[in-house]
């Protein structure tokens, strides 16, 4: 069992401010059901004073996710928006008397939801630079901006901490190298800006990346020559044709755009566009392709033809 504080347990068993806030004027949604937790924060802001007069939450997630959501509402009610925006995810964790390290991402989810709800109230678009390349962890849909915010906000100095705080790297772990890149860059900047002691910063040379289960070579048969590029592309095409009917049943679709080495570019269309499960769909497509082709492939969703 997790070592939850009494306050975490209390806020989980008897959550305050759960449910729908009918007259909310700011709503922030973060997370996704495929990722295992999701939070909708609803706030009521008094326009003249900019005071958050009420807040409610709905959360899909574990005990600490529900407790963190409830704690967040308690922390922001009665504060002005400017005051609330000063809060960090650590404030949420502290309010609860601390969270287990592996559960810190629950407090980060609260922080992100608050910023999303305030942006929604202000009529702004919440920073969402999912432009190609910016999405680092495809399993949990975490982009570079969020990882950087969390590293800075919590003075993180290890990849493991990034996973605990944001979940990035907690799935297939193929983004391990990108996480190291971001951590190395941000830590170096923090040292320059005087926010981090040089000896505490992430040291890539000394870091040994943990070994995770690799992609299992299913289709490779002994003594068989490797596929030619043409054969590989054909096999990918055929496999995608096999997958399409099941996507079409849900009103979506998927087409092959390009193959570059082991990178397979696909375009999701129809109901897949904007679907928060599209990350899981891509993962599924990738698993099917790897199985069929027998070599490691990375499936990358693209929005336009190049």
């Amino acid at each position: 069992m997790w070592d939850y504080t009494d306050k975490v347990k209390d806020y989980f068993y008897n959550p305050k401010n759960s449910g729908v806030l009918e007259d909310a004027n700011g709503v922030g949604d973060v997370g996704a059901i495929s990722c295992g937790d999701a939070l909708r924060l609803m706030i009521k802001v008094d326009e003249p004073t900019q005071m958050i007069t009420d807040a409610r939450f709905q959360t899909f997630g574990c005990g600490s996710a529900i407790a963190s959501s409830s704690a967040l509402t308690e922390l922001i009610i009665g504060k002005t928006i400017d005051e609330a925006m000063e809060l960090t995810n650590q404030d949420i964790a502290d309010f609860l008397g601390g969270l287990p390290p592996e559960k810190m991402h629950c407090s980060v989810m609260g922080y992100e939801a608050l910023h999303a709800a305030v942006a929604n109230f202000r009529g702004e678009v919440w920073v969402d630079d999912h432009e190609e390349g910016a999405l680092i962890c495809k399993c949990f849909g975490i982009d570079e901006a969020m990882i950087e915010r969390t590293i800075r906000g919590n003075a993180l100095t290890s990849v493991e901490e990034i996973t605990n705080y944001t979940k990035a790297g907690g799935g297939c772990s193929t983004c391990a190298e990108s996480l190291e890149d971001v951590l190395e860059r941000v830590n170096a900047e923090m040292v320059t800006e005087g926010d981090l002691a040089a000896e505490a910063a992430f040291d890539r040379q000394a870091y040994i990346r943990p070994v995770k289960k690799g992609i299992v070579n299913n289709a490779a048969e002994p003594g068989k020559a490797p596929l030619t590029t043409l054969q590989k592309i054909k096999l990918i095409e055929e496999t995608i044709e096999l997958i399409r009917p099941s996507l079409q049943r849900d009103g979506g679709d998927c087409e092959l755009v390009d193959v570059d080495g082991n990178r397979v570019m696909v375009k999701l269309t129809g109901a897949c566009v904007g679907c928060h499960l599209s990350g899981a769909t891509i993962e599924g497509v990738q698993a099917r392709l790897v199985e069929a082709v027998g070599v490691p492939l990375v499936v990358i969703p693209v929005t336009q033809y190049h």
Partner: protein
Amino acid sequence: MTPVYLDNNATTRTDPEVVQAMLPYFTEQFGNASSMHAFGAEVGSALATARKQLQTLLGAAFDHEIVYMSSGTEADNSAILSALETQTGRDEIITSAVEHPAVLSMVAHLEKTRGITAHIIGVDSRGRLDMEAYAKALGPKTAIVSIMWANNETGTIFPVERLAQLAHEAGALFHTDAVQAVGKIPINLAESEIDMLSLSGHKLHGPKGIGALYVRKGVRFRPLVRGGHQERGRRAGTENAPGIIGLGKAAELALAHMDDEQTRVAGLRDRLEKGLLQRIGNSFVTGDPDNRLPNTANVAFEYIEGEAILLLMNRDGVAASSGSACTSGSLEPSHVLRAMNVPYTAAHGAIRFSFSRENSDADVDRVLEAMPPIIEKLREMSPFWRERDVRTSEFKPTYA
């Protein structure tokens, strides 16, 4: 109120009769069976009896086909490593996507360090093995097949006897992790072609710290643990006499209760399952209803998360387990449910209820009463759940 324990696939209560059988071997009969004096001799004969008891439960032809080890995990590891050493010229392993980590982690490690090739055979939505893929994967390079007898999360039973025949046609050894099957369903190894089988004491009301590997007579075996002649040189180390004797007693009791397990215990499980599905909408049973362990029910509750369910159940005095990400400390839901393609909307909310002969009708009543309010409370809190009319499409995360 006494808690209701429905997590018997995780571990069982050691039967008091088992404890009684073990106790003398800590103090009065503390001797080392290998010693040349009376202290050792008495222990030696008790160990022989225990071996016979386990042999009977397994329906094994010879008692020396049993090699005692520390755990089911050690047995799984030993079986695979031995096969790679004895099967000269063969360097491929076939296993399933839903195995216990005791097999999957070892196989992944061997792929990395020894360059062996692994064929991980998938399952369908009920958790049944893809027989076509299995037949295709078998070949002249297959050293060993390791496929579980029954799955720990869903209880789905694999056709191991048939799988063993097919493995032999390809000249491969067949090992089965039967940790969840032994003691729950009848097993007759003498009549099968299974070469090796792993089991664990604490899953059948025996003590923890004792397991065994069955190695069919004639199957070549290379030990993992060396340094003594114990277990005919196949597993060194002074015998865990209390453990072995406890496991023997547990095997005897399991055989005596085998009918009860198939009828009454299965009946409790069925009543719980039906009752839950009747009372709680948007829930379904995972696994193969036609071919399952009698004691296991895995019910997925949509749009809520397993750890939260378990915490509330625990407060109501009901113990079960979940394949959800959060309970395991990993961030991904159970590899078993993922291999079965259970949708994400439900995989995070799957709860495993596993019974034993110690459960009663009153336990089922308690759980049936406790669950509906728990599920309702969490669903009301879930952004994906709207008054029994779920519109997940309304949930529009800024990033997802």
